[in-house]
């Protein structure tokens, strides 16, 4: 079977509507016929989780008294995986790719995700293909787990762990949509450089939201070029929160205005793609 596609949604700043875009695209993908294994949404914005709010969980049987917030998620999965890897050979010995793959398979990623349904659409079978992996179990320990998780140390002892995780996800689902953390952080690096085949960069058309974006994109593309990952990395710039009534302003942000010293975002991305992909004349119009 063809490997699934991982799509990461990233924005440098908050408030761009990134999570909403992800939720909507997940629903659109669920309507496709070629989707057999399902779609997994992962909330990797661990410091400010919010993806779960877009979806109402399926009804449980009365005997199931686990409250939805108590259900484990991504951080709990990583804690279990870390423990398992440390147990096999100790904290210092480097793990081979095969060892890491075996551990990940043993953990069973599916048990950390839940099938979801929307009340208004619950009668529609299509949406049964949607799965959500929450950020984690919202207990009092949650913030401690998140702030203490040693993403770097884990990479040091198991360099293959994140790419092996991506490969396992690609085995289990047709589409994997990742809601990444904002800014330049350890987890946003994993989400944008290692995980995706497609990187959706959401931004509001003002200079603040665009700062850091070209840098992050070229870092992600250049990392792929020297990795062992043969998947292409295609970047989709997605401008959001555009005021359609302000036609003139819309054009200024997109195409630029020399008098005001504004470089249009379309031109910025074209220049960026020209250099990172060595393209002759990229045209985003």
């Amino acid at each position, binding site marked *: 079977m*063809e*490997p699934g596609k991982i799509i990461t949604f990233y924005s440098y700043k908050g408030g761009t509507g990134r999570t909403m875009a992800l939720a909507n695209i997940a629903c659109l993908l669920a309507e496709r016929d070629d989707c057999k294994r399902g779609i997994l949404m992962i909330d990797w914005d661990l410091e400010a989780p919010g993806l779960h709010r877009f979806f109402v969980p399926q009804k449980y049987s009365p005997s199931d008294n686990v409250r939805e917030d108590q259900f484990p998620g991504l951080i709990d999965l990583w804690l279990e995986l870390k423990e398992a890897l440390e147990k096999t050979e100790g904290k210092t010995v*480097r793990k*081979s*790719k*095969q060892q890491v*793959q075996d551990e990940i398979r043993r953990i069973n990623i599916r048990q950390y995700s839940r099938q979801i349904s929307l009340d208004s659409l619950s009668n529609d079978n299509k949406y049964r293909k949607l799965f959500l992996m929450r950020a984690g179990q919202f207990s009092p320990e949650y913030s401690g787990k998140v702030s203490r998780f040693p*993403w*770097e140390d884990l*990479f040091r002892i198991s*360099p*293959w762990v*994140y*790419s*092996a995780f991506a*490969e396992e996800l*690609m085995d289990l689902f047709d589409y994997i949509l990742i809601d990444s953390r904002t800014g330049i952080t*350890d987890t946003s*690096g*994993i989400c944008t*450089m*290692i995980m995706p085949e497609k990187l959706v960069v959401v931004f509001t058309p003002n200079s603040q939201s665009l700062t850091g974006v070209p840098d992050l994109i070229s870092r992600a*593309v250049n*990392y*792929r*070029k*020297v*990795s*062992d*990952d*043969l*998947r*292409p*990395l*295609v970047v989709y710039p997605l401008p959001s929160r555009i005021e359609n009534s302000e036609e003139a302003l819309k054009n200024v942000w997109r195409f630029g205005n020399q008098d005001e010293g504004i470089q249009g975002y379309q031109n910025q991305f074209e220049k960026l793609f020209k250099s990172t*992909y*060595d393209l*002759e004349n990229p045209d985003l119009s």
Partner: protein
Amino acid sequence: MSKPIEQAIVRIQNSEGRVFGAGFLVSCNQILTCAHVVADSLKIPRETQELPDLTVLLDFPLLEKKSLSSLSIVRYWDPKSDIALLEILEDAPEGAIPIELAEVNDYSYCNFGVCGFPNDIGDWTYGKMLGKTELGYIQVEAETAHRIQGGYSGGPVWHRDEEKLAGMVVASDEDLPKDKIAYIIPVSTLLNALPHYLKKTSQSPAPLMYACFISFPVDSINSLIRTAAQEIQEDLEFEISAQLKNKSVLANTTRTARELCESACMIMLYTYRYFDSDDPLCAQEFHAMSLLEQTRLQELNVRSTKETSFIIPIVIRGIDKFPKEIDASHPVYDFVKYFMLSSGERRRRRDYRKDIEEIARHIVGQCKRLEQNIHNPCGNCADFELPKEQDVQHLIRNLAPNWVF
């Protein structure tokens, strides 16, 4: 020097056993002779233009082991240049060895030896080659008691100084028999007339089955590298097939040593994992082709350069880790930028298509170079074995992904 002639020479006869001239074996079943010898034996006019649709009788009288006469058909017919190529219906008899046709450097006042059948049983003449005449023939003069005369036509003339075929007897000067002058068609004329008709002289024909072998590492997302190899294979095949009939490009899906040996060139599809310790097969394939490359370059008598390379590295990931020592004498292609895009977008790119064309040209050039100069480039392909794992340890490396944070 008489041995190569003895093993190749034939007598052209008619059904009553009368001999009309000579000829000689040039491939496993092809005989070169004069058109007028064939015409005389068939009792048709020497000016006949159409290819005679009749069988020609011949035998190999000077082989150690006697054999029966063979029937042959006319494959090529040029009465103006007086050249005919016959093809015997079975393979040549045991002990017969074809004479190779290769360009001669110099004729002037060089020594020759030739055999013919003026007396039906074989007659030898030695002498000097003098120089070119207006018709493009080489004038020769006998220095022995016997001279070149009727019955020598079609006979192989051996260049005793260069130890190869000098040409084929075509006529003698019957007006002044005491001057012992005769004429031969030089080997270059024979080669020019017959490029599409001549088979290779090698006894085991067609040693090169494939134009190129694509070596690539397996990967946990296996389908991606396989797809990449197959697409490059298709793109190259498209360019190469027009120029090299019966030759294909082979992606190493079956992964056997023999196919590597049967290929003119090898593409190493370099990714991060090409020399990985988990899968030493690529390192073995690379080392094997390096050894074949060395042998081939030696036999061709050319230096190892990017232009003469039989290994073409195509890098699709990790050019920063590509071994520098391979870089020096192989044409390395950076395909990383193409493989950051989907296959559709990649194939639409002009620079990608240009690179593919260039690689195809290189492969075609190397194929022709091998076939024109070496008859059996890889020795015995069936017995070819990959180098052992312990012999490629110097190539193998243990790599971890680059730092992310």
